[in-house]
C-alpha cells in the first residue's frame, strides 16, 4: 500500500512547474489574455517539448502512455500558472476518447498528431450533461447538425470532437463548422459555441450503442478540471500566505492577526485533503474502474466548492489589493470560476454521483 507520488511523477511535475515559472509569469499570462490568445505558439511548443500532450497517448501511437494521474499533475501545474493553453479538451479528453472508441485508422491519424502537438481538438460534450439555449447535435448519414455549447478549447481547435444526442462521438474539421468564441470571465482558455449544419463528420465506432465512451471522456475531463482548480487554489493560498507575512498594518504583519491567520488555516485545512482526492480519482480511472465515475464526480464537485472558498478568501486576505487588476490575483479567481461550471456544476455532478451509486 502506497498512497504517494513516485519519483517519476514528482520529476514530471517539477519539470512542468519549473518550465511554467520561467516561461509563463503573470506578465505573459496578462499579455496573452489581453490579446485573446489562448494558444500562444511559444508556450504551446514549450509544452510539446516537455511531452505534455503525449501523456495519455499510447506508446504505439507515438505517445508516452502514462496515466490520468500524470495528466492531472500537469493540469495542476497549468492551473497553478493560469497558463493560457488548451489542455483539458485537446490533450486529455480527445486522446482518451480516441484511444477508447476510435477505429484503428482514426487512432493512426490523430493520436500521433495530438502527441506531437500538431493538432488541437475542441471537445463538445456539454449537452450530455445538460442542455441550455437549445444546445444539442443530431447525427445523420455522416453529418452533424445542431449546436454544441461551451466546447472546450474550441476556438483554438483544428479538429472537433462532438457528442451527438445519443452520446456517440464524432470527429469534424473545425474549418467546416461555425466556431464562435464565448467570452467568459477566464480569458486564459477558450470555450466556444459550435454550430453545425449537415457538417461532414466521422463517428468513433466504439462510441455508439452505449454511452460508456462519452462518460469516460467526461470523467477524465472532470478530474482534470478538479486538478486545474487544485493548482489554481493552491497558488492563491500561497500568495495569500506570502502577502500575510509581508503586509503590515497596525505596526504588525497582518498574518499575526488571528482573523487573518485563521482564514489561511481554514483554506489550508480545506484544500490539503483535496490533493488526495484528486490523486485518488485520477489513479482510480484505470486502476479501480468500479470507482472511476464516482471519484471523478467527487473530485469535480468537491474541488469546485473548496476552490470557490479559497478563491474568495485568498482575495480577502489581500484587502483592497486583491480586488485590483494590477495584482492579477483575479486570473486565478476566474480560472476557478470557469472550472466550476464546465462539465457540470456541483449540484449536477453530485446528482450523477448519487445515480452512479444507485441512490436515484
Amino acid at each position, binding site marked *: 500500500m502506497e498512497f*504517494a507520488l513516485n519519483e517519476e511523477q514528482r520529476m514530471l511535475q517539477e519539470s512542468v512547474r519549473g518550465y511554467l515559472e520561467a516561461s509563463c509569469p503573470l506578465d505573459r499570462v496578462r499579455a496573452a489574455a489581453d490579446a485573446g490568445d489562448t494558444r500562444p505558439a511559444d508556450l504551446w511548443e514549450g509544452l510539446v517539448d516537455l511531452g505534455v500532450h503525449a501523456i495519455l497517448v499510447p506508446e504505439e501511437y507515438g505517445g508516452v502512455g502514462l496515466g490520468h494521474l500524470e495528466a492531472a499533475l500537469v493540469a495542476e501545474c497549468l492551473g497553478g500558472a493560469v497558463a493560457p493553453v488548451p489542455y483539458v479538451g485537446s490533450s486529455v479528453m480527445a486522446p482518451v476518447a480516441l484511444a477508447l472508441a476510435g477505429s484503428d485508422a482514426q487512432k493512426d491519424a490523430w493520436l500521433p498528431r495530438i502527441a506531437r502537438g500538431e493538432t488541437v481538438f475542441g471537445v463538445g460534450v456539454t449537452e450530455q450533461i445538460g442542455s441550455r439555449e437549445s444546445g444539442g447535435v443530431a447525427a445523420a448519414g455522416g453529418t452533424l447538425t445542431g449546436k454544441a455549447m461551451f466546447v472546450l478549447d474550441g476556438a483554438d481547435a483544428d479538429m472537433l470532437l462532438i457528442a451527438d444526442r445519443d452520446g456517440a462521438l464524432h470527429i469534424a474539421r473545425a474549418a467546416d463548422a461555425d466556431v464562435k468564441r464565448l467570452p467568459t470571465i477566464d480569458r486564459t482558455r477558450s470555450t466556444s459555441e459550435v454550430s453545425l449544419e449537415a457538417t461532414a463528420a466521422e463517428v468513433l465506432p466504439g462510441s455508439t450503442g452505449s454511452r460508456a465512451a462519452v462518460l469516460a471522456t467526461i470523467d477524465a475531463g472532470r478530474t482534470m478540471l478538479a486538478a486545474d482548480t487544485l493548482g489554481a487554489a493552491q497558488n492563491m493560498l500561497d500568495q495569500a500566505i506570502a502577502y500575510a507575512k509581508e503586509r503590515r498594518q497596525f505596526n504588525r504583519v497582518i498574518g499575526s492577526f488571528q482573523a487573518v491567520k485563521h482564514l489561511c488555516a481554514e483554506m*489550508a485545512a480545506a484544500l490539503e485533503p483535496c*490533493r488526495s482526492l484528486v490523486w485518488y480519482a485520477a489513479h482510480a480511472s484505470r486502476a479501480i474502474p468500479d470507482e472511476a465515475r464516482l471519484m471523478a464526480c*467527487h473530485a469535480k464537485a468537491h474541488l469546485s466548492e473548496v476552490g470557490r472558498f479559497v478563491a474568495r478568501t485568498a482575495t480577502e486576505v489581500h484587502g483592497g489589493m486583491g480586488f485590483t487588476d494590477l495584482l492579477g490575483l483575479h486570473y486565478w479567481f476566474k480560472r476557478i470560476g470557469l472550472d466550476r461550471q464546465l462539465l457540470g456544476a456541483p449540484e449536477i455532478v453530485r446528482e450523477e454521483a448519487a445515480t452512479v451509486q444507485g441512490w436515484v
Partner: protein
Amino acid sequence: MDLAYSPEYAAFRDEVRAFLDSHRDLAPPPMQRGKPSEQAKAWQQLLIEHGYAARTIPKEYGGYGAEPDILKSHIIAEEFGKARIRPGHDGDNRLVPTLLELGTEEQKRTYIPPTIRGEMTWCQGYSEPGSGSDLASLSTKAEVDGDDFVINGQKIWTSGAQYADMIFCLVRTEPDAPKHQGISYLLFPMDTPGIEVRPLVTMTGEATFNETFFTDVRVPTSQIVGRRGEGWFVANATLKHERGGLGDPNQAESRFHQIVEMMREETLDGEPLLSQATYRDRLVALQGQMLAMKFNGMRVLTHNVRDEEPGLPRWIVKLNGCELNHRMAEMAIDILGELGVLYPSKGFGGHRDEDVPYLRDAGFWQQRYMMDLGLIIGGGTAQIQKNMIGERALGLPKEPKVADPRFGGGAA
C-alpha cells in the same frame, strides 16, 4: 500509487477477518461507560493474545510484543471498524506511550501490564478552571515535604475520574520558574486521601466528566514521570498521542454508511429520504468531504510507514476530522427531522429508564451531535488547531506576547 496490499498484508487482513468471524460473539457492545466489564476484560485479553491489542507493547510489560508495523496496525483498525466490533486498546493511548517513552523501568512494570489488561483505569488531570487552552498556566501546586509531594488545587473536565483507579496529573512544583518550566507530571491513585470528585453533567445529559479537588494529597516523590519541572514536555509527548486519535477517518466512513442506511429506511410522505433530491445532494457533498479526509489519511499513513513527517496533511486531521463527524451527526438529525430531537433526559441509552416513543438508535445521533462538539473543544480547541496550522505548518508569525506577571522568567 499502489493501493493494493502485498501478499503478506493481504494474508494478514484475511487472518484478522477470520478471527472476527469466529469470535464476534465474544465481543462486548461498542460503547460502555464506567469500569470495564468482565466481558470487556476477557475480550481485551483475547485480543492481546492474538496481537490485535497492545500489539507493539513489549512482552515484559504484558503486551504482544510485535515489531511496530504501521500497516498491520492500520489493517486491524480498519477491519474492526468495518465489522463494527469493539476494538482492543493499548491501555490508555495517552499514558502508556508516555510511560514507554519516559517512564522508569519500575513505572513501566508496575503500571503498563494492569493498564493494558483493563484492570487499572486512568483519568487525565490537566485542565483547571483557570487553565484550559493555556494549560501551561496551571496552578494546582505540589510542595515537597519529606519524601512526599503535598498537592493542593483543583482540576476540571476530568473525564472518567469517577471510575478511574489512577490519575496522571500536571502540578506546579516550581512556582518561581518560567511557566513552562515549573510543571511536573505525577501518577497517583484516585483513592489517595484528600481527593474529592464531583461529577459534572454535560449537555448530553450524562456525567462524563468531573471536578477533581485536591486537599493536602500526599504522593511519594518517586511517583513523578521525568524530572521535576519537566512535566510540560512529558505531557506534550502525551498530547501528541491523544491528538493522533481524534478525527479518525475510519469512524467517519462507518458513520456515513449508517446515514445512507438510515436514508433508505426513513420516510417522509411515504418516500425514503434517499429519494429526496435536496437531502441526497447534502449526503453526496458530505461523502465528498469524507472521502477527501479518508484519502488524506492514506497519504498520512504512507508517510508514517516511510518514517517521514507528513506535515500539513497531519496537522489538519483533528480539526477536519472532528468537524466532519459533527457534520455527519447534524445530517443524521436533519434526516430524522422532528424525530431527530427525541431524546432521553439521561442521554444515549437512557430509554431503558424513560419511555421515549419513536426514538431512533437509542438517541445516538443527538448524543453524537453534542459529544462531537465536545470533541471539537476538547484535546485542543478548533481555534487552537487553527493557530497551530497557521504558525507551525504555514509559518505565519505568532501573536505578540502579553507579559504574564504570575510566572518567573518573564515568559508569557
